[in-house]
């Protein structure tokens, strides 16, 4: 990175997850070893193999005008509190909860938007007693409608990039925000990801037999599949110059981003994880870090047989004999897989591990995959003097992405 390239720093973060209605609450329960697996209650799953997921408890929105709130999808009800926390933490909200900046670029990710509204539309059309008065809601299912809800609620506008790269989307959204700042195209970018649980997506994963009917056990030899979850998470990214000029607290640095495409198969990763290795190397090169600088790695770790095996191969290839020094966990056993939000929330965990030294555990492992048996984080583990942490994500369609976080040094 040359001297003219801005350093990208994080100045705000917020999250609504199955473990809590804000970031700190979620983090405390995560590092404490809790999980959010429970029976699905928000739609009927009686015809599915699986019946469990990690649902989020929606935060109280009673302060929001009822006429506005009643139009909001579950997606908007997740993202508004998460963004409020991030903007507030970054010092970007005024006393009325409105953005101090009239124009604020957004780089955001999702895979389904407010798909439940689309589902309701089709159910209504095909149902025995059509209710036309409810059909107008279909216009609100698309992802850009949730962005317009944010614009309306927080009083800002600006360029928006909504990336839908399946499960790597959240990391792509952060990476693109950082790209914009590094290229001098923006001084500040709000990045985030969100995903509400919906029947269509749940049934889709169920019919693929990609979900576990037991527990989600990332990197366990007997792993049998993922657990779906839902979440929303945001980070405020800025150039360090911009952040320092306005006196913002700096939480860390988005030091590196790598992304690429694994064309092996639509739903299966390359068994050797070759593209993931390249993607991680690119992120490390941009961060000016060696692989051995990574103290903690938040893996994608869906607990599907193919994904975890591919990641194990990639980690072994990247780290070689240094593999033993890296602590690794997948947080999906605790939180579920929140698809378009996963990359964002897991990036926040990697950043918080760097800041605090606390490490999020890899739950439910009975017999670990031999390749990473010595690496998996146990409940209560801490690390000292980490130079960098990494978060990686792999998605349907072959999207691979890696982010590297380092401490900020002025």
């Amino acid at each position, binding site marked *: 990175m040359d001297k003219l390239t801005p350093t990208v720093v994080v100045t705000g973060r917020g999250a609504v997850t199955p473990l809590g209605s804000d970031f700190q609450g979620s983090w405390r329960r995560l590092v404490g070893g809790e999980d959010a697996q429970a029976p699905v209650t928000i739609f009927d799953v009686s015809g599915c193999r699986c019946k469990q997921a990690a649902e989020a408890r929606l935060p109280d929105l009673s302060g929001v005008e009822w006429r506005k709130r009643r139009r909001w999808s579950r997606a908007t009800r997740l993202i508004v509190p998460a963004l409020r926390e991030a903007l507030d933490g970054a010092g970007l909200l005024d006393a009325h909860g409105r953005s101090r900046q009239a*124009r604020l670029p957004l780089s955001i990710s999702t895979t389904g938007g407010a798909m439940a509204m689309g589902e309701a539309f089709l159910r209504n059309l095909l149902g025995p007693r059509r209710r036309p008065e409810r059909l*107008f809601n279909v216009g609100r299912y698309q992802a850009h409608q949730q*962005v317009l809800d944010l614009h309306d609620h927080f009083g800002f506008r600006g360029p*928006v990039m909504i990336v*839908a790269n399946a499960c790597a989307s959240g990391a792509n959204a952060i990476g693109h925000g950082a790209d914009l700042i590094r290229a001098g195209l923006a001084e500040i970018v709000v990045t985030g990801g969100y995903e509400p649980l919906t029947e269509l997506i749940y049934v889709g994963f169920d019919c693929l037999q990609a979900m576990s009917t037991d527990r989600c056990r990332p990197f366990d030899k007997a792993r049998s599949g993922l657990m779906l979850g839902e979440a929303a998470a945001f980070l405020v990214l800025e150039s360090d110059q911009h952040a320092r000029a306005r006196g913002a607290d700096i939480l860390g640095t988005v030091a590196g981003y790598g992304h690429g495409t694994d*064309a092996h198969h639509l739903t299966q990763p390359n068994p050797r994880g070759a593209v993931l290795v390249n993607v991680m190397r690119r992120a490390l090169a941009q961060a000016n870090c060696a692989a051995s600088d990574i103290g903690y790695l938040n893996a994608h770790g869906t607990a599907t047989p193919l994904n975890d095996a591919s990641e194990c191969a990639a980690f072994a290839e990247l780290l070689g004999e240094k593999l033993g020094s890296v602590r690794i966990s997948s947080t999906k056993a605790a939180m579920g897989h929140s698809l378009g939000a996963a990359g964002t929330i897991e990036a926040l965990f990697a950043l918080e591990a760097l800041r605090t030294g606390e490490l999020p555990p890899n739950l439910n492992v009975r017999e670990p995959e031999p390749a990473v048996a010595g690496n998996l984080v146990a409940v209560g583990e801490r690390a000292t003097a980490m130079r960098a942490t990494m978060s990686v994500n792999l998605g349907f*369609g072959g999207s691979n992405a890696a982010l590297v976080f380092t401490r900020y040094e002025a």
Partner: protein
Amino acid sequence: MKLEHPVSICGVGTVLPESEAQRVAAVAGREHKVLRVDLTREPLAARQNESRLRRASPLTVFMLEAAQQALGAAGAVDPSTLGVVAALHLGTIAWTHRFYEGVLKSGQRFASPNLFPETVFNSAASHIAAVIGVAGPCYTVVGDDSAWVTAIAVAACWLANGSAEHVLVIGGEEFDSLELDAYEQARWLRHDGRFVPSEGAGAVLLRRARADDAVRVVAVAEGFTYRNAAEARVAAEELFAEFPDVRDVCRTAEHKWLAPIEAQIHHDRKLVAPPPGPYRGEAFTASAAWDTIHAAGHVRETGQPLLLPVWGQSEQCSALLLAGKPLK
């Protein structure tokens, strides 16, 4: 926003609907005019024989064909330095409709594991990357018609930071009868046949501009959002105020609910008419791609800067500024 590193269009491709409209019934029963792509015609029929595309949606076939045309027009392009940005409004709506209707009619237990992966937004871009051999960056960006402009901005960023040497930007939409029910709700189909849903794809191959390029994208304007006509007018005024010195503007909102605003707002500029020939309907990001290709042709002929507004049907108005050769 002026691009510090302008980009040039070095290849284009289109998949257009047939010029004669079909009557298609909405799920709820009412019939409307629709412009469809004929998938039985070559080269689209042959594209469906690609092994990777055996379960893919029509959208994927349209987008792959447009992408291959753009690559073919540009000559030799190294896939290892190629990026792909797909811009979508509705995505694989037909397959999503089929999948969920199957769930509702047959039960969750009988949901199709073959269909579900193809309903994911980035399935089309993934297939295209696999067929072309792209291992580099590949994004699918979503929004209304204006997602096309966002995709161009993403590509410009990758070309500027060296993530790719060429970027394929592909806009595509497929039609499904379910859309008609939604458009009826939005009242887009009430205006005496002005809005006709359609489908297809358009692609441009971009690279960093060189001094001898005849057409360059020199600025991108995004983020002028709205939810109703009053907000759209304000947004459009703000957008066009960013380009006070550009005289020529493409007329692109003629068949949308935004047409009256477009007609009022450009009283002091020269409006460039849409391409001659039959109306190709509204295919959102694909239409934006077709408009961009038309605008590039106009700039190549006249050498004059041309502003191409992309009037989104439900989110925002964005714009691309195209210019001819820079003065020596």
